[in-house]
Every structure is written in structure tokens, then in C-alpha cells.
């Protein structure tokens, strides 16, 4: 799922342009972005608060299992990197003593 501080209209237009099919959520007042500690204050147009790029993997118990915080917005996790992390974690998860 994608999350940005753009309103749904902007996101809708972007999805139709790019053909991306995963859900894309709008955090217009950046409240969730702030809750995740990913706020980039005043970096948007007109000094609006936006998110710094980040990719997070959450397992079915709702636990964060992997997080990628880039220091350069040109260099973000690629889909194959996320899949690799998921493969490794989901395999390891079967033997680890996880509650629930």
C-alpha cells in the first residue's frame, strides 16, 4: 500500500497515469505520517508537511518486520529488494518462536 500526503483526487489521477494497482492512501493532514515518525516538515509545496520516503513490511500479527529508511530520495528500496526481505523473513518466521 502506498501512503502520501496528497488528497485522493491527486492520487487517483496518478494511479490512472502510472497503471499502479495497489491501494494508495491519502494522509492529507500527515497525521499517520507523523505517528510513524516519518514527517518531513514543510518540504511540500507551500510548506506543506509530507512524508520522507520509507518502506515497511508488516507481518500478519501487525508487527514491523523490516523497515527501509533511505537517506537519499533518489535511492529507495526496489520491489525486488522488498520481496527478498519478505522471502527471508517469512521463511525464518516459520521456525522462530513467535507468539500467536
Amino acid at each position: 500500500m502506498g501512503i502520501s500526503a496528497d488528497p485522493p483526487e491527486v492520487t487517483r489521477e496518478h494511479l490512472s497515469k502510472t497503471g499502479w494497482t495497489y491501494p494508495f492512501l491519502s494522509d492529507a493532514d500527515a497525521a499517520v505520517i507523523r505517528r510513524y515518525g516519518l514527517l518531513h516538515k514543510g518540504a511540500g509545496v507551500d510548506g506543506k508537511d509530507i512524508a520522507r520516503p520509507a518502506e515497511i513490511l508488516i507481518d500478519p500479527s501487525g508487527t514491523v518486520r523490516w523497515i527501509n529508511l533511505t537517506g537519499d530520495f533518489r535511492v529507495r528500496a526496489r520491489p525486488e529488494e522488498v520481496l527478498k526481505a519478505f522471502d527471508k523473513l517469512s521463511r525464518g518466521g516459520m521456525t522462530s518462536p513467535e507468539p500467536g
Partner: protein
Amino acid sequence: MATRRNFLPLAGFLVCLVGFVSYFFLFTLFPVTRDVPWANWLLFAAGLALAGAGISRAFRRPEIYRGRVLGPILGGLSVAVVGFFLFMTLVASRQLPGAPDAPKVGEKAPDFTLPDSQGRPVALHELVGPGKPWVVLIFYRGYW
């Protein structure tokens, strides 16, 4: 004796321009040329070498080559294009705040409910649960 046209400064500038634009339209698509833009650096090096050679011959052999006015102008523009690219890729794109309060591995992901692109509410607590797939959350800067 008539002096010859000196195309090298213009060629150098055009190569620098291609080096700039090609990053965004071509090289950023491939991880191997995106993370470290070496392909663009090579183009810039070639462009600056061409411009430098053109300017140099305009001044060293003014009886043969023209370009003592236009050469330095195009050379300056080439340097400006390269400088702007380096600033954007080495400085501007790294102006990100740290994220000391981001969730750590092993912590519960904070719950949320947000509207999707159709305005339908999506809640994280409804997506997770026994037997459900993992969730990938991707935070974007937005402004497409």
C-alpha cells in the same frame, strides 16, 4: 585567410545537456545507473572535454578557429548544467530529516484508518490477522 567554424563548444554543451536530461528519462529506470549516476558522469566528462578542446583551440589558434566569445559562454553553460546535476543528485536529494521515531523492527505497527484513492476507508487492523498476507507500507513524498 577565413577562419573556420568551431563546433566543439556547442557539441560539448549539447552532450552535457543530454547527460542531464537522460538521467531522468533513461538512467533512473535502471538500478545500476540510478543509485550512482556514473553513466551521466561519463557523458559530462565527454561534454566538458569537447567544450574545453573547442575553447582551447579558439584561443590558441585564433587565426584558424572562431569561438572566442561563444566558446566560453557555451563552456560556462556546460559547467552550470553539470554543477546543477551534481547539486541535485548529491545535495538536494539527500536533504531528508532523520527518522529516530520511526517504528523499529519487532514493534507493533501503529494502527490507522485512511481513505484510498476512491475515498473508501482502509484500516490497518482489518488487513492484518491470522492467515492474512503481509502488508507492505510505502511512504511517498507525493506531488506527482
